[in-house]
């Protein structure tokens, strides 16, 4: 099954490979600070090396009873390098970081954006809604490039943290609160992210991917996601639908346009259009979908969906139905 475990979807989540001006500001802030840090460390190491050069090799030598050679020089350095210099350095960091860069990473004013997305953390997946449309999806967040998107981060259970490092800082999803973060991608692409706050046994498998698309492609995608589910065509799929609706599946999952209205697991209206299953745990193929339904606990031990050790035909039927939900 190793092959199925997601090879990161081929994307990185490197905070130092920014793809938005927010992430770029943060990254260059980091590079400057790191340069400074090496200099600071250099000064200290230089002093230690100097003392090593002056070291005494053996014996305890004469006592320095009471007299403190070079005390004035010592005070001079302690005050100069230990008080004045850090004040300058730290104030610079503070002013640049907390008075300027912070503006770009702050929550956008509600008037400044033309698209709002609600991302709701669940143990252990991300519900994604596009207010104003019926679209509900999971773990894969599509946004148009070059557009400022307001992301409202909420939680349905415990604290999670929404984070796509190539685009912006992270934002905690806290029950009872709505936090806001901006996403603006400069180039189309898939940007991997993760839940960054420990949220239980499957915190490790609570990935997300932000798909930045050109405006037109995004609109097409959104329009399709907003539509109710496609009716099953083949008889196999129809039988699958019956299984889904009459079995336990519908108690946890919603499929818009059908009777399935569950809210425990992800909305499956267009599950087949997603690239991954289980919050980036496995790549979505007919085989993995079947395997997931049979035993999702194998891929994601402890996740909230029980295993369904159904017979091969039933699994095939269910899979056929879900595969039709493009």
């Amino acid at each position, binding site marked *: 099954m190793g092959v199925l475990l997601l090879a990161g979807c081929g994307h990185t989540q490197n905070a130092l490979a920014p793809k938005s001006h927010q992430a770029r500001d943060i990254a260059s802030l980091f590079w400057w600070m790191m340069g400074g840090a090496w200099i600071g460390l250099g000064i200290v190491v230089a002093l*230690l090396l100097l003392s090593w050069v002056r070291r005494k090799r053996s014996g305890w030598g004469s006592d320095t009873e009471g007299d403190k050679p070079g005390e004035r020089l010592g005070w001079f350095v302690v005050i100069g390098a230990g008080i004045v210099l850090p004040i300058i350095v730290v104030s610079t960091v503070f002013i640049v970081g907390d008075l300027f860069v912070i503006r770009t990473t702050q929550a956008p004013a509600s008037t400044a954006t033309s698209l709002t997305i609600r991302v709701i953390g669940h143990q252990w997946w991300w519900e994604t809604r596009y207010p104003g449309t019926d679209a509900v999806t999971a773990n894969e967040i599509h946004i148009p490039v070059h557009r400022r998107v307001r992301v409202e981060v909420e939680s349905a259970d415990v604290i999670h943290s929404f984070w796509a490092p190539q685009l912006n800082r992270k934002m905690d999803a806290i029950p009872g609160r709505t936090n806001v973060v901006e996403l603006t991608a400069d180039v189309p692409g898939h940007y991997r992210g993760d839940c960054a706050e420990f949220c239980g046994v499957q915190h490790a498998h609570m990935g997300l991917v932000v798909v930045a698309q050109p405006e037109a492609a995004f609109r097409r995608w959104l329009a399709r996601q907003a539509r109710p589910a496609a009716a099953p065509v083949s008889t196999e799929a129809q039988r699958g639908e019956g299984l889904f609706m009459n079995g336990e599946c519908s108690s946890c999952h919603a499929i818009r346009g059908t009777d399935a209205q569950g809210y425990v697991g992800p909305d499956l209206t267009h599950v087949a259009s997603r690239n991954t299953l289980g919050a980036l745990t496995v790549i979505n193929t007919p085989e993995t979908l079947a395997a997931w339904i049979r035993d999702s606990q194998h891929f994601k031990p402890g996740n909230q969906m029980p295993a369904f050790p159904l017979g091969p035909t039933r699994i095939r039927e269910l899979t056929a139905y879900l595969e039709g939900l493009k």
Partner: protein
Amino acid sequence: MAIATPPSPAAAETMERLERMWQSRPGVLGWLTTTDHKRIGLLYFWTTLVLFGAGGIEALLIRTQLIAPNQNLVSPSTYDELFTLHGMTMIFFFIIPMTTGAFGNYLLPLMIGARDMAFPRMNALSYWIFLASAIFLYTSLFMGMAPNAGWFDYVPLANRQFNPGSNIDFYCLGIIFNSIASTLTAGQFIVTMFKSRAPGMSFNRMPLFCWAQLAAAFGLLFALPALSADTIFLFLDRNVGTHFFDPSRGGETLLWQHLFWIFGHPEVYILIVPAFGIATSIIPAFTQRRLVAFPLVAIAEILVVFIGFGVWAHHMFATGLPTITLVFFAAATALVVIPSTIQVFAWCMSFVLGLARFKTPLLFIAGFIFMFVTGGLTGIMFVAIPFDQQVTDTYFVVAHFHYIIFGAAVFPIFGGMYYWFPKVTGKLYFELPGQISFWVLFAGTNLLFFPMHIVGLLGMPRRVYTYPSGIGWTAYNLAESIGGYLTLVGILLLLGNLVVSYFRGEPAGPDPWHGPTLEWTISSPPPEYNFAVVPKVTSPYPNWDAADREEDRRHLDEGVLVLQHGHEQPAVTPVDARFAEIVEMPHESPWPVILAFTLSLVFVMLVIHKYGVAGIMGILCLLALVGWHSKEPQES
């Protein structure tokens, strides 16, 4: 120089009399009832060392699980218990009790010229409670119910709804239990430093080690109650049905985080300040120079803890607090850097201006400075809020605090173990293996923790039991794990060296380093009464004041200032240390063990939800307290 050897037959007789008077009971019973700060210090030392081993094994299991992507060495839920216990053990059951309980206990009275702590029985009580709390916490592991929501245990994940087992009850009670021990230690350290210094040791003459312990003790005293309140609320929420943290009934999720970090941030400085104290003991000895800018360093030690109380929300930069709040706490965080830089440069200049002898203890201090500065500089980066919001809860933060904690709190502990080894055992350790152990540890910890910076920037969140391959994290994690094993090798070398030295080492004599402070004036190991005469103190480096030591010998000869009518010890006025009173110290008592035992029963009953029985056990505790106070000093 030292009065380790009696100057005259009369003095020898005096010392023998003191010896008999202060002698403790032999055998196990002697250890159970002891009130001798040195024995309690050793008990603390061994216990915390074992717990360090436990925390270290947990860490190595973590590292082995993460050595390659998609591994299944431990189950996800076991992994959660491992890192939670690792964090709790290292912080509450290793560093704090090691630096205060072990080093502080053993050395404070020796450095201030006292014969014991101000409250010797309370000191013993603190140890037994500490031991019981450690056993209590680790029982949960063997019952498969170890705390599993991280060492900062955020609600609602830790609340009953999402964590129905007893795991978090063990967390709450274990922490409260442990805080009692720490509070007792802190309280009696403060009183000891105020009341039991040698007459003449005014505050400006108190060694920096003691200043550091004082700062840590004040920090503990005022930080722990916030944690106690927090854990009490959580326990009530979980077991009584209150709604402190439940937003649907008017509670607040973030209340937990505020209270936790109001404790948690001061706590991290409490961890480090005693280590500063160890550094400021070793540096003067091995550079044979009084520390540069002594008053500034003393003030800085206090200030770092003080300012540390005002920065807590920098652990909550990503929670969506109002920007103005964040900026305020970032500014406070910027401020807290200054006392640290003062100290770093005072140490460095002492290295340069004195004549450094790079023996093992000083090597560890040099390594400590290197790692503290590295970790401190990443700390400064967090002052830039947007950057912190990018890397918080990733391995970058894990790198920051391990550099600071392992590099800056544990390295001085290792250095201190070498430095005071001759004092405690009377033997010299082996120098070359000592230096090798340093270099192995230095290489190991850097290999272990440096790549964490990179992997954090590459986006790896913390507290993940596994990670996917193909996003560039694999090689770094492998390197970290190898570094972890190398660290283990280094620690084993160090401990091995000390064990062999204990049996094979050369006799050390009272003062092998020509050390600056009072503990080097007496024999190694120190006699049970510590000081035969009340030492004269006119500077913070009394052992280098030859004339004063000469006067001590004369006093001993003449039987002046010997205080030999019982377990006597001088008490002084708090600030200028005028001789105020001669007090009789308690000696050997079974009550600390008894009280600690009854208190454990209370906690056991609480964790199995037998509240009525817990109440009865509480009454037993009160009875034990009455018994404790039944015998007054003059009756013994």
